[in-house]
């Protein structure tokens, strides 16, 4: 049958992320994880004492926590923490101008098209190369409104009064083993503050690039949007394809104060050797709105469940996610909605596609305690299976108590049939084009809700992935 052709390893050689230039690193924490490594990072970054202490405590927490292999994936056992390099940087400060970024790094971002996108439609950009931000800048007009957009290191040094108040508050160190790991060795990521009432028109973007082999990237992002303010943040990630495992373990904390709106968009296109274990959560105050748009393409294993804690009355949380599990890959993704006030609403729409031996797992958590009134949740999970060997599982875990609260849950599993592919081929499409059109059709109604630039990029990535999968 047409759709049963042996899927070769979904190969993203053809995607624009798979290339790698040699770079000289001035700072290298070496291989393995210990107090020494954590202290090395603190020294290099000239951390204030409280941060050094925070890191060392986090390392203890990390070491004391078991791997979540019992409920997630045995594949986690393949991560050898002693073989990973935890900090790599050139040791030059973050530049405000692309001209000042060292040539060997700049060409990577140019090839990824970042400076061009910045000119076209972004209000600000931060570019991280392995452990540190090499470039960060916002448009003058945005800066003049009081918007802060810098790397986390700069954020904690220059804006401690805001940074310290919220850092580690939405996601405590001990939330899970990987949030603890990140807390011990974090470097890079964005710090954003938007003052009351300021609505940032164009998106701010961060681009995370892993360039080195056997490396772990641990960026830490903290976004605080003050009362009535609005921001859209987009992150893109790529890495070249190495034969050994690479670890990406970020922590992202969002705080939307009263009436604020945050839209956080991820376009992840990791190569198939990356373990992507990320904790993302937002805290929504009264009438605030937090929306995660999360797209997971690539990686060997992704575990990521963006969440919103609906702390204030009438706050609203949303997770729109798409996961594409290629041959040999596992996307274990989902959403968490913790309702903590009356009249809070949450919406989860998850679409997954499994190709070849790919596996997509939806893991959700919706919690509405008994004493709350007029809370609503809507959860939709749709899975599309491409081959007979593809797999999907759904663990929705919805606990809605109390009488005045409502919940709606729908799930579906569909398959691209051989007849459907043949029909499309009869109109002239190649097998790969037919597959990618089917997949794009499957995610279409969701993608329509995404910003333009993003949906175009996503469509292109899906095409690359699908055409690569039928070889």
């Amino acid at each position: 049958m047409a759709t049963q052709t042996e899927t070769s390893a979904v190969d993203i050689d053809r995607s624009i992320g798979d290339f790698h230039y040699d770079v000289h690193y001035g700072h290298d924490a070496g291989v393995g994880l210990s107090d020494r490594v954590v202290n090395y990072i603190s020294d290099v970054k000239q951390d204030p004492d409280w941060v050094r202490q925070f890191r060392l405590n986090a390392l203890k927490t990390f070491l004391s926590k078991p791997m979540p292999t019992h409920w997630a994936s045995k594949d986690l056992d393949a991560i050898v923490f002693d073989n990973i390099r935890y900090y790599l940087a050139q040791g030059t400060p973050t530049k405000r101008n692309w001209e000042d970024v060292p040539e060997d790094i700049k060409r990577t971002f140019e090839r990824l098209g970042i400076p061009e996108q910045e000119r076209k439609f972004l209000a600000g950009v931060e570019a991280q190369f392995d452990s540190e931000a090499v470039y960060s800048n916002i448009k003058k007009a945005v800066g003049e409104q009081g918007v802060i957009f810098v790397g986390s290191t700069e954020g904690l040094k220059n804006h401690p009064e805001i940074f310290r108040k919220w850092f580690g508050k939405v996601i405590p160190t001990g939330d899970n083993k990987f949030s603890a790991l990140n807390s011990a060795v974090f470097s890079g990521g964005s710090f954003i503050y938007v003052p009351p009432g300021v609505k940032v028109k164009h998106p701010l973007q961060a681009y995370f690039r892993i360039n080195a082999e056997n490396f772990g990237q641990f960026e830490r992002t903290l976004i605080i949007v003050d009362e009535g303010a609005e921001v859209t943040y987009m992150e893109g990630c790529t890495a070249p394809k190495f034969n050994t495992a690479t670890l990406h373990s970020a922590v992202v904390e969002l705080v939307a104060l009263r009436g604020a709106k945050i839209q956080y968009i991820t376009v992840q296109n990791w190569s198939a050797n990356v373990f992507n274990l990320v904790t993302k959560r937002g805290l929504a105050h009264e009438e605030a709105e937090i929306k995660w748009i999360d797209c997971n393409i690539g990686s060997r294993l992704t575990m990521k469940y963006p969440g919103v804690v609906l702390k204030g009355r009438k706050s609203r949380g949303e997770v729109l996610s798409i996961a594409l599990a290629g041959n040999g890959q596992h996307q274990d993704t989902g959403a968490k909605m913790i309702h903590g006030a009356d009249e809070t609403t949450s919406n989860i729409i998850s679409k997954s596609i499994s190709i070849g031996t790919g596996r997509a797992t939806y893991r959700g958590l919706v919690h509405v305690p008994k004493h709350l009134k007029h809370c609503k949740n809507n959860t939709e999970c749709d899975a599309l299976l491409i081959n007979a060997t593809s797999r999907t599982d759904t663990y929705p875990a919805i606990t809605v108590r109390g009488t005045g609260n409502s919940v709606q849950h729908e799930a579906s599993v569909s398959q691209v049939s051989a007849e459907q592919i043949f029909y499309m081929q009869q109109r002239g499409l190649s097998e790969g084009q037919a597959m990618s059109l089917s997949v794009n059709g499957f995610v279409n109604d969701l993608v329509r809700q995404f910003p333009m630039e993003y949906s175009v990029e996503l469509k292109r990535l899906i095409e690359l992935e699908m055409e690569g999968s039928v070889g």
Partner: protein
Amino acid sequence: MQQLEINNLRVAIGESEIIRDLSLTVRTGEVHAIMGPNGSGKSTLAKAIAGQPDYRVTGGGVLMDGENLLELGPDERARRGLFLAFQYPSEIPGVTIADFLRAAAQSRSPEGEELEATDYYAKLYEKMDLLDIDRSFTSRSVNEGFSGGEKKRSEILQMAMLEPRFAILDETDSGLDIDALKIVAHGVNSLRSPNLGVLVITHYQRLLNYIIPDFVHVMVQGRIVRSGDKELALELEEKGYDWIRDHAEEPVLV
């Protein structure tokens, strides 16, 4: 020579042979009709010619303008000008007719050449008017929730857009009321030209009142048992398939 040539074709699905030594030649400019009872193998023939991968050709050949189609994938056959209007067209959830047809048209453009959007839509709307199709139709997902009539009209719309040289229409009349049948027939007739060969597959004679064939073939159990002109269809309608079955031992060929 512009012709679709089916020579002593044998097709098996699994272990059972469905098409058994079937020969037929359709030249451009001609309309041939194949009539036959349910299960006689009409759809199997159509899909085997189009390259459905489950259907195993165990003997004979199919040539289009002298080129062996059996060596080509279904998409290559399509791009060379073969079109099949399916008896049961597949649904493609989330993909609009406009996007689908655009991708199909794009697949025929030379590598690296983008289809001109305004030209494409102008042509699409022209063909939709021809088939009395509402504009809003193009933003619906391909065949999803379509009525029987809408599906058939959408197939003919696709044919009109893709401008094949040889088209096989598999029971394009089934499930249509008389008004819809007339519209579809009108659409097909307006596409008739010296550059198009058509093979109309039907169970009933009714369609052939509107699409007048040059040749009629009767198919029983995977073989053509009788061929003639349009009068054969009327005769068949009158006497029923049993009459053919009774005479199946002595096939009459043109």
